[in-house]
């Protein structure tokens, strides 16, 4: 087994997901099965092969930094679970 419950807990922490004990057990088993299947990739020699991160080769895309009017601010803020004026409100970060 590649992935232990401890690994699942570590990854869940990185992903900011709290998981139930059932989910942890399930994921440990399923991720093992999936990763085992993916080990087939190791049969391929990829020495010297460049990675493809995007199907279309692209340079950085630049545009002029100009000020434009935007009418979406109210719409964005109105989706906030908690807000104050034009700000998203969260629990205190720094004590």
């Amino acid at each position, binding site marked *: 087994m590649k992935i232990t419950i401890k690994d699942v807990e570590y*990854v869940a922490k990185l992903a900011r997901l709290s998981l139930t004990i059932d989910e942890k057990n399930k994921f440990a088993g399923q991720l093992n099965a*999936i990763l085992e299947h993916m080990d087939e990739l190791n049969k391929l020699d990829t020495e010297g092969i460049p990675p493809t991160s995007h199907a279309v080769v*692209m340079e950085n895309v630049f545009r002029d930094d100009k000020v434009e009017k935007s009418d979406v601010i109210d719409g964005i803020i109105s989706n906030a679970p908690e807000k104050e004026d034009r700000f998203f409100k969260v629990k205190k970060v720094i004590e």
Partner: protein
Amino acid sequence: MDLNNLTAREITEKIKKREISAKETVEHFLKKIEKLDGKIHSFNSVFAQKSLKKAAEIDEKIKKKETVGILAGLPIAIKDNMCIKGEKTTCSSKILENYIAPYNATVIEKLEKEGAIFIGKTNMDEFAMGSSTENSAFHTTKNPWDLERIPGGSSGGSAACVVANMSTVSLGSDTGGSIRQPASLCGCVGLKPTYGRVSRYGLVAFASSLDQIGPLAKTVKDASLILQVISGYDEKDSTSIKIPVENYISEIEKDIKGLTIGLPKEYFIDGMDREVEKAVYNSVKIFEKLGAKIKEISLPHTKYAVSVYYIIAPSEASANLARYDGVKYGFRAPSDSLIEMYEKTRALGFGIEVKRRIMLGTYALSSGYYDAYYLKAQKVRTLIKNDFDAAFKNVDIILTPTTPSPAFKIGEKTSDPLQMYLSDIFTISCNLTGVCGISIPCGFSSENLPLGLQLLGKPFDEKTILRAGHNFQKETDYHKRFPEI
């Protein structure tokens, strides 16, 4: 007038000639939705009042002989991961259940400008992760041909509503087959354009290097019409490409004499469904009859596509979905600290498949595993891309089955995620390599379930797969059969 079996082209012509009004058209489809969607569950929301109002405006313009767009009065259903200003965009997820889009996606702007009417938003697998719509947080869409079967996914609602005649055309999104696979399993046409052909602005991101928006329709001709409208460079999407949009509507009318079609031997394997195989080979004969040349080719790295995809897509997803933390998008779980708020909101807001993929992606990107999984997958992605580049030097298009089997039963594959992932084998490479692909109905199984063939084209050569598909549909009538619901 019976609008049931009319195509989008026929409907818009009749509206322009005032043989029928836009209002009557919208009323017809709203009635169909009311009658059928309780059984099919295609829609997450239906915009009855808004679409009727819009239709009245278009009728008024036509009456006054004002110019209207090429889609004037045409109802269209939109997958619920594209933003329509002022409407919910849920991605069939609890975490976005009450999220109201503050702006329009570029495809929505373009369709609206041509007079299309948004009739509703369609069900999908949560965040487009899935092949059956069983991962929707709200409901599972049923296959109109057999209500006990899945419609495919993730754009299952968009495919089912077209086949059940609740909308003539719809938009879906395709990250690993999410337009083509449901089109194949429901018996309609589904097009994934080349990566960069259609702006992704306003499409909720799943895997940004793979996602692409495209149309589902009854005919290739209608899919061409919609592609014509939604294509083009958009400065709001820096990955959309500045290549002129061709005239698909006229290009598809040309014949296919001399066109070279490649059959990749890796897609015709032992143990594949006999009926799928038979239907696809039968279609090959039709293409031959139409003057195409058939050539066997090889795409040797095909079998690795599923592994590559299920490393790359979840990795990108784990980054894209980090933004759903309880701060900005409506849903927040009550908690005592900030970290707890993140963890609980995500635990309660995401479904099991989304969590599984976030876990898989986070693992593949985590320190110590990045090289072994993510980087390795990107290198094999290059090998798969090289296969296609080499093949397209010798053939104009590539023909394959869209799916290894017809629609499976609801619940059949939910307990084994790997089996579910493996069912995407034929559609995934198209996204990894960024080429274009279309699924077209090509037969029925002995259980009367639709079967589909897939045509893959060179990057930005949508016109050729559309032309081949349109010629095929002139010779066949699979797309003219509809389920009795």
